[in-house]
């Protein structure tokens, strides 16, 4: 194309531009609908929600491992641990992502995880737990 000639888009360019316009419109409408739907439940942002869900998953995994470990019967002697087991391993609420109280439940899970990690780290077996890479990762992530 000569240097002094204006660039004139081809049909393919026009199709690409049209596709971009329609996709942008759909994206806008989706985000607006999504935003409205979530705002009715909580003002939590999407990134905060993702963080809370990750914390809940970590808590469920941690409680499951502790319960299955040789220390399980010892820990289960504590009422607090039994409460955590009941709340996060056996409760149907934990499995329902559409629950209207989902955000409150997740925020509670994050608090429980922080408390549990602190207690485990401060206890007589703290050094033993901290020798595990996974436990150190959890401490770095949540404490």
């Amino acid at each position: 194309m000569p240097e002094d000639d204006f660039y004139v888009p081809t049909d393919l360019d026009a199709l690409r531009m049209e596709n971009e316009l329609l996709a942008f419109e759909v994206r806008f409408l989706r985000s607006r609908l999504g935003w409205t739907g979530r705002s009715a439940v909580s003002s939590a942002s999407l990134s905060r929600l993702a963080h809370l869900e990750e914390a809940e998953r970590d808590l469920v995994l941690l409680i499951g491992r502790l319960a299955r470990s040789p220390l399980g019967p010892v820990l289960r002697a504590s009422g607090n641990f039994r409460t955590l087991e009941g709340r996060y391993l056996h409760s149907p609420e934990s499995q329902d992502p559409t629950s209207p109280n989902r955000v409150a439940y997740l925020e509670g899970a994050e608090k429980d995880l922080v408390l549990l990690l602190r207690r485990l780290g401060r206890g007589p077996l703290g050094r033993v737990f901290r020798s595990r890479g996974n436990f150190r990762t959890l401490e770095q992530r949540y404490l």
Partner: protein
Amino acid sequence: MPAPPTNAAGRPILYAGRFAPEVEKTGVPEGWTVLDDREVLPARLAAVERASDLVVLDPLSFPFENLTGALRDVPLILVLPEGLDADFLAAVFGGPVFGRLDFFDRLATSDAAVLEDLRRRYRLAGGQLVRLGGTEPGEAAGEIAALLRAEAGGVDPAADGAGPGVRRARRGDYDAKAAHRAQRAALEPQFAAAHGGRAEDVPFRVLEVGAGEGRRAGSFDPARAEYHGLDEDEGAVLAARAEWPEAAFGHLGADLLFPHKDETFDLVYAAGLLGRHPDPEKRRLFSEMWRVARPGGRLLFLEDFVATAEGAKSGSRPEHVLPVLSFVELLLVATDWQVVMEHVESLRYPDEVMTRGGVIAASRLGVPRRW
């Protein structure tokens, strides 16, 4: 009953109704199709589609309710019955006829007082009013034929009330009216959204950038909104002032700096303007539009986001048409991200294959500097 003689695409149609014998006697203008009052049954009105103009000489017998769909895109010239005052005409035709008149439609009568009264009631532009010399239907048909011939020949009769040499917006244009109606349908809900639940006594200030001859000024009621228009074309500014004496139209200089103070308008919009300017000028226009909008006010754009031959015909330049994402990015950068997206809508013009147009509305963020 025989069908109307021909498909009149690109040519005027005269609905003579009960006056058909009289019009036949005085002579049918050359190239025109004449319909009488038996030829406007809904099935037969298809002959009107894509006509350059529909001249209704006998509105009292014309079935306006059958002008639907593409038939509404035919520019209309309504010859008002003589000897009736504006109150009577408003009672008979009112909202369903006068209220639906577009910038491309016209009213014709020999009674200047009736024209002026209807102009105020239905927010009509000066160029929508055709003052006839004669009162007989045959004479009226002849005068309108002469007017349309002059317009087709490129002669611009001075707009009503305008000085000589002031050009008038071209009206007998099916495609332009169809596109204008599509744009109105997309813009007017956004105008209403920008107005919101504002109290009647709170002024609603609107600025249109690239207002041209002011074809969108009629969307705002002067009693409720203060409309301002800017355009780079001085001829268009003069034409707009002739069309809308009560609106404020100004010239936009080559520096693209608006002559208005910061935070003046509740709605600042442009339709088909940015696609004529290269990116640095777009950026300047975005920046100026943002500057004169008040915090919380609305910025509105109706632009082509796809470069097509049809878009080029309507004024946008293919090399300056930006894809929508680049357009939005430029808007965000030019306004320092001080806007929030309110509405995105694609717009497909009648009879076109591609969806080339789109409406983008954004609110200006920030705290007002003055109250």
